[in-house]
């Protein structure tokens, strides 16, 4: 087990190194000199030259790359062009809404997906199964930004149940801030419940036909006990895996959803950085998100090992 963990950590580091390298060189392909962008239209060529020297942009690209990589390894993602602060600070300031949005969304997606998948497997081929499968298929193909706009119109504007957008005033309490997350989390949760539903259904169908389920049934264990205690526990490994994968997908989904609901999260930061060509922020966010993604995957693998003793061997 320790050996395989070490090997996984190794390939994780390689993947992160490749992501960082890719992000660095792709950014260099971008048109326009970062120093010129930073200084705006009024700058003289001499000003631009001076700033290029300050940021090391006058050095050969490979030298810049090595210097940059050294900083990244030490956790320094550079300086935002527009925000006048380090990228890590900018990311840290925006992490709260994104964190809670992702958390609520995965809870909602799981609360929809797992019961729906179980019901669908237990009543396989019946009306419940068909309705659940159809809804899951529909949910997976709804653009989240569109569903967000529809929800805002209906639940916030027409019914006035939730705030329309934003994250409350600067001094708002945590409860007030979290109230702003109900609609976006519902949107993201619904859209991402589809995968969990499908996996739960498939995984339950797999175990419901197994011998121990038949044994339990012949012993006279009530059907609920069979489904929840005997079948569901054994179906749990793929379900845990897919919930983990969904968390990783949510990070991407959050970008669009935050924009629709005007939440000041990481996604919003990235989108405005893209529109303003604030490359250090884009680079930093990409690396942070990729790191999160590989770490979630690693965590899923570890949980997998803990939940299923067979994998440990």
């Amino acid at each position, binding site marked *: 087990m320790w050996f395989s963990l070490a090997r996984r950590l190794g390939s994780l580091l390689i993947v992160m190194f*490749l*992501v960082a390298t890719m992000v660095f060189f792709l950014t260099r392909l971008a048109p326009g000199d970062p120093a010129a962008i930073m200084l705006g239209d009024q700058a003289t060529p001499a000003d631009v030259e001076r700033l290029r020297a300050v940021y090391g942009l006058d050095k050969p690209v490979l030298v810049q790359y090595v210097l940059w990589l050294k900083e990244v390894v030490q956790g320094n993602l550079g300086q935002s062009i527009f925000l006048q602060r380090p990228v890590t600070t900018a990311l840290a300031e925006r992490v709260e809404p994104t964190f809670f949005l992702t958390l609520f969304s995965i809870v909602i997606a799981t609360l929809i997906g797992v019961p729906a998948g179980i019901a669908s497997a237990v009543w396989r081929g019946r009306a419940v199964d068909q309705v659940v499968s159809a809804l899951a298929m*529909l949910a997976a193909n709804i653009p989240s930004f*569109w569903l967000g706009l529809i929800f805002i*119109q209906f639940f916030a504007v027409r019914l006035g149940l939730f705030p329309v957008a934003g994250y409350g005033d600067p001094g708002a309490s945590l409860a007030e801030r979290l109230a702003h997350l109900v609609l976006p989390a519902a949107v993201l949760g619904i859209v991402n419940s589809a995968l969990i539903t499908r996996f739960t259904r498939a995984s339950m169908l797999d175990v419901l036909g197994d011998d121990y389920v038949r044994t339990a049934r012949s012993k006279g264990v009530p059907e609920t006990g069979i489904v929840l205690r005997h079948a569901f526990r054994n179906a749990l490994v793929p379900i845990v895996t897919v919930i983990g994968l969904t968390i990783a997908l949510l990070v991407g989904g959050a970008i669009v959803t935050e924009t629709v609901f005007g939440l000041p999260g990481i996604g919003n930061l990235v989108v405005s950085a893209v529109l303003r060509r604030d490359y250090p922020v884009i680079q930093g966010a990409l690396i942070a998100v990729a790191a999160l993604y590989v770490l979630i995957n690693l965590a899923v693998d570890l949980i997998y090992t803990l939940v299923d003793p067979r994998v440990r061997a």
Partner: protein
Amino acid sequence: MASPTVAFLNRLFRRKLVLAAACVLLAFVLAALFAPWVAPYDPGALRVIRRLKPPSELNWLGTDEFGRDVLSRIIYGARASLGIGAAVVAISIAAGSAIGLTAGYFRRLDPPIMRMVDAVMALPDILLAIFLVAILGSSIFNVVFALAIVYTPRVVRVVRASALVVREQQFVEAARAIGASTPRILFRHILMNVTSPVLVQATFIFAYAVLAEAGLSFLGAGVPPEVPTWGEMIASAQQYADQAFWVVLFPGLAIVLAALSLQVVGDGLRDQLDPRLRKAL
């Protein structure tokens, strides 16, 4: 005598839902191809006097903030949205197959290629796409290129996995024994045997690409605003949503309908092409 193709289509369309989805797709494709004849109005014609009018006999799906006919814009939007989706599919299938075959057949090249694939897939689809469009600049070509880069790794994984299995089979050994060249083995024997999973992937990527393009346009990092795509229609109209819900509702329904139909057809194809999956999913 029914040919294998006809027999296959018969089986595929026995499921009513798959048939219905295929019909919806066909309708979208025909509308896109014959847009000038199908659309009731010029999609760019401004009639400010009729701005934000609800659906009526004159404008079946209402008019937008410039008085343009929403239905006509959706029909023309199908051109861009589906055209971009199709181009993304074509490029990512071609590139993904070539890379996947290489990784699956040449053992030494497998680890570096797959680590690159892991690296690209470590970034969320939409995030990588907006990053690439930001670097390349916003144009239809660049959106296609960016989305193709995003989806190529999926094809690589599928093709590689199949190629690893097919490579070990006897007919490949036989081909090698009678002196077939490596390219011939790769393209005639291995590629031909991985077409089913690739075909299924193609429909899914098409659906993802339609959704992703809409997302990009919505974020303002998609095609230039003068190109009417479904995502762009929603993005530009969203501020009028509370006065005129139809400007947001109908283009969104077009996206859902197109992506859903592709997904249903893809599921149907997979069930037919891979009998092992028929039970589980």
